[in-house]
């Protein structure tokens, strides 16, 4: 029996090791080969930080990165507003006319292929353009399409937080005569702030990562980072892309670590409520 137990654990540990190796091997490869001085990616030519220098002076990639950061931060912020309102409506307003529609509208984009979302958003913008000469396709249209997609993810995050959360505090505030707006600002908002941050980060990464929807909805001259990377990847491997990937991995890990520790410290206060 003891032997059997050991064997089972050994097997599970092997599976775990294999799984994590599978998940992290490509990332290790990305980082390792960003320091390869040889432009031929298959041969190791020694350690070098040359590609980081070339990346930072690569004008098209840098401006695409700037565009992506603008689009991602704007869409994440708007998506948090839309998503929080939708989450509030779905959890705190009880039954209202159109609740089923709103629930369907916030969950459908989650399962819809990006190609479909991109295509439909573009066709809307084309239709609007022929009717009203507005909006011109560019960063603004990418942002609108991203807000639509990301707000649904934010809704899920906020909704799950709100439905787990006891609403007795909100009720108590209402009983004591606080207006709904004040209840939201003083009770609900502070309690759901961790989920709002999580939702913002999720929306930000989704927008930063998106190639398909952005390619459909962008206009001439509006290139986001994934679009620039994609056109470079189609031409073959490039150590610059590895350097870029390494920087993104480091930034994301740092951001996640910071939010994890920041939220970790506020967590007891939330749990206590």
């Amino acid at each position: 029996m003891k032997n059997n137990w050991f064997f089972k654990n050994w097997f599970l540990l092997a599976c775990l090791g294999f799984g994590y190796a599978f998940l992290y091997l490509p990332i290790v490869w990305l980082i390792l080969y960003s320091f390869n001085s040889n432009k031929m990616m298959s041969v190791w030519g020694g350690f070098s930080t040359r590609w980081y220098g070339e990346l930072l002076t690569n004008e098209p990639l840098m401006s695409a990165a700037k565009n992506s950061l603008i689009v991602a931060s704007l869409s994440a912020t708007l998506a948090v507003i839309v998503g929080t309102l939708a989450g509030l409506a779905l959890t705190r307003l009880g039954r209202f006319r159109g609740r089923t529609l709103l629930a369907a509208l916030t969950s459908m984009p989650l399962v819809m292929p990006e190609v479909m979302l991109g295509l439909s958003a573009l066709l809307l913008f084309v239709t609007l353009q022929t009717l009203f000469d507005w909006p011109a396709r560019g960063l603004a249209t990418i942002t609108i399409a991203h807000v639509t997609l990301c707000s649904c993810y934010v809704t899920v995050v906020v909704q799950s937080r709100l439905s787990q959360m006891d609403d007795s505090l909100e009720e108590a505030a209402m009983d004591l005569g606080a207006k709904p707006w004040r209840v939201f600002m003083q009770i609900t908002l502070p309690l759901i702030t961790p989920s709002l941050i999580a939702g913002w980060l999720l929306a930000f990464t989704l927008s930063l990562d998106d190639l398909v929807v952005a390619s459909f909805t962008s206009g001439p001259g509006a290139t986001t980072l994934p679009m620039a990377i994609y056109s470079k990847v189609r031409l073959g491997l490039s150590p610059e892309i590895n350097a870029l990937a390494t920087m993104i991995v480091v930034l994301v890990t740092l951001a996640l670590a910071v939010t994890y520790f920041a939220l970790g410290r506020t967590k007891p206060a939330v749990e206590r409520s």
Partner: protein
Amino acid sequence: MNFWQLASDVVFRLFRRFETIGAGLHRRRGRYLVVAFPMLWLSLFFLAPLLIVLKISFAEPELAQPPYTPLVQLAGEGEYKTTITLSTESYALIKDDDLYRAAFFNSIKTAAISTIFALLIGFPMAYAIARARPDRRIILLMLVVLPFWTSSLLRTYAWLGMLKDSGIINNTLISIGLINEPLHILNTDWAVYLGIVYGYLPFMVLPLVATLVKMDLTLLEAAADLGCRPLKAFFKVTLPLAMPGIVAGSMLVFIPSLGEFVIPDILGGPDSLMIGRVIWNEFFTNTQWPLASAIAITMLLLIVLPLLIFEYVQNTYFSGKRRA
């Protein structure tokens, strides 16, 4: 009662009616705003576009800007009536053309095979994570989710570099003497399966962990006490109890991979056509907007079907649980 009195009474009553509506709106304005803003946004930028796609899928291609015929021809000068033309040409093309049929079949096949592999890799991982100490479990889970936060495009690109004939995987396998010739994995269906399993593994592991953590371990002890071998207990006890997680995880992998574009485009060969790629090509390369729209609508139906099955399974599971 003279006419003016009557008139003012009517106006007054009308005004009162509006006043009650106005008071209601004013009293519940927060409520209306909370619902209206997301509703309007999603209707305008998600629902309306879907209807436009549906509309354009019934149009005919035309060499113009935008490149499709209008469905509704308003009566212009010298014409007498408004005409509505619905063309099912695009749908007929999808039904009859081998290329599109193959793309649909290939998408379902790729998604199904990738889901099975994701389950085979994800289940033991999830099992081990669920049985780990709670403080370790959080770290293990975070490690599963972490890659998801970095760009999927770049992670797919990493496989492009690793799977090459002269890439790190082939070089390692040759240097340890396992193979003599490099394996041609890149630009085959296998590369696509690998990419999809890699990209969607967290979606498989997370629901599985969620159900396996809830499992009552005394059931396994009871099975062992009654003389059940561990392997049999796994199939008779663990697997049925993990079914909701298996179904949820499989759906979360299967549905998005049906329409996947990036992974088959970068890792797949010229003949690993999937619907997402076909839509992209028809739209950007061939400017066949009606055809691209019709394929998109067909794909949507294809996705709604497994979702309905999923809903059904979920509902039967939950009602079963309530009975217990």
